[in-house]
């Protein structure tokens, strides 16, 4: 009995190898039985197949390939298409069996395709600005040089009190915020642009939400990114702000959008501003983020606003705050990067 089974299976396989393309989908099923005891015999067979020259085999296959004919000859239906995971519409917590996909997965609901272009500014940065910055900030240390050891930034609690044991360390003397350390710049950590935040706060929005809508349209058109609105957290009577009212609009730009926005601002908008002096040299938060602003009449110079200026109520066009977040840890490095990109600075430089 067993011998009969083996021979019948062998004959079947012979047939399938003779007409491989007609039943290619069946062959795939056969492949799952690759661990059968038949393996040895098959191995010999396949060797003999491979002995023919590859071009011959390919020509033969090509002549046999006729998908319409195959479809007509097929008796039974093809198996249904592969199972596809459908990302759920709702996130129901980490314990739910049906978990959403990561946003990087193209099947995810939150997937954002792109980037679609290689912006000019990015190319300039990679080809010339980054190497230049690295050279400019290069600090040579002769071999065998050891850096002088600095004291601890956070002080220990010194005293007889038993409570000083295992107590968290004291903050630095004189100020309570630890400034970022500036590491020597190598090819790994050349300062680069990370993101740009465009922000506008509208005084009139507390009373009239039209300001918010107009500002949202302006910012979205300028930046190519959907805006987010922000509500007041705490009421401030002197500014006429009440908690819970939406008064400001921001959009965060990353990657492609960021580069396009910055190059547009630098090449087109800034030079068009009347009597423009540049960005104030004291701008920056001393950890590598530099911000500057545009007045309402300057915002009207953006090509996207200019192209259909009549669309916006002229009194509602907002001013903007633009914050450029760089990976530099000091304002000096960040300013150097921005200067290389083309942003002019004026006045006293504060680091």
């Amino acid at each position, binding site marked *: 009995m067993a011998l009969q089974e083996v021979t019948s299976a062998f004959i079947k396989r012979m047939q399938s190898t003779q007409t491989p393309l007609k039943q290619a989908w069946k062959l795939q099923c056969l492949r799952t039985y690759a661990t059968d005891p038949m393996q040895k015999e098959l191995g010999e067979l396949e060797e003999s197949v491979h002995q023919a020259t590859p071009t011959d085999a390919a020509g033969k296959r090509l002549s046999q390939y006729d998908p319409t004919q195959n479809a007509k000859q097929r008796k039974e239906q093809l198996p249904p298409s592969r199972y596809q995971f459908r990302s759920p*519409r709702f996130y129901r917590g980490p314990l739910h069996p049906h*978990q959403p996909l990561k946003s990087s997965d193209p099947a995810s609901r*939150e997937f954002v395709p792109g980037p*679609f272009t290689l912006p000019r500014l990015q190319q300039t940065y990679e080809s010339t600005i980054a190497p230049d910055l690295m050279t400019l900030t290069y600090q040579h240390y002769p071999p065998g040089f050891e850096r002088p050891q600095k004291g601890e930034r956070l002080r220990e609690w010194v005293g007889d009190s038993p409570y000083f044991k295992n107590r968290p360390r004291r903050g630095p003397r004189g100020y309570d915020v630890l400034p970022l350390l500036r590491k020597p710049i190598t090819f790994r950590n050349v300062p680069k642009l990370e993101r740009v935040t465009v922000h506008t706060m509208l005084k009139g929005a507390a009373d009239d939400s039209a300001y918010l809508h107009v500002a949202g349209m302006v910012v979205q058109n300028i930046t190519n990114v959907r805006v987010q609105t922000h509500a007041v957290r705490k009421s401030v009577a002197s500014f006429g702000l009440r908690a819970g009212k939406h008064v400001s609009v921001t959009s965060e730009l990353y990657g*492609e959008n960021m580069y396009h926005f910055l190059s547009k601002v630098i*090449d*087109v908008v800034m*030079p068009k501003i009347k009597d423009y002096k540049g960005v104030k040299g004291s701008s920056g938060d001393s950890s590598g983020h530099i911000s500057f602003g545009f007045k309402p009449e300057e915002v009207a110079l953006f*090509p996207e606003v200019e192209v259909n200026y009549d669309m916006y109520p002229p009194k509602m066009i907002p001013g903007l705050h633009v914050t450029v977040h760089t990976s530099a840890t000091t304002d000096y490095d960040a300013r150097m990067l921005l200067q290389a990109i083309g942003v002019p600075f*004026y006045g006293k430089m504060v680091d």
Partner: protein
Amino acid sequence: MALMRPSLRPSATLQTPHIHQQVRHATLLKRPKRPYTFTQLITLSDGSTFLHRTTSPAPIYKSTKDTKNNPLWNPSSQKLLNVEEDEAGRLKRFRARFGRGFDVESLEEGEEAREGEESVPRERQEESLLDMISSVGQEAEKKGKAAGKREEAKKSGKGKGGQK
């Protein structure tokens, strides 16, 4: 880019697999909205062009004033400093007719400067070059140097504004 998506924020617990808290509500995973963008060709005043993505449907944007013809971005250009808007040549004709000797001279000088930008006396050029060389070695005064450089640029910008 994807990390900061607002709709991802409620599912922040996803990133800490060790703390499992049962959530009884469901959070809608919104599809991110993006404005439609077009490819636009920006033509700068000197004829150079580049492409960018923008929400503006105009296929070409021609700029009349940009980094290529703004003295703030070109502090060493004599041509841009003495720029005089005389497209129809009316001012020139007026000078030719009523101008005094010094007016005519200044006009000729300006034109010379416009052709080749070498109207700056040689000594001054050398001075500026020496300035650059001497400041290279001073590491301690790095910051001061940067500041000084910028202030020059600012002056040139002022000069331009005054002419308007």
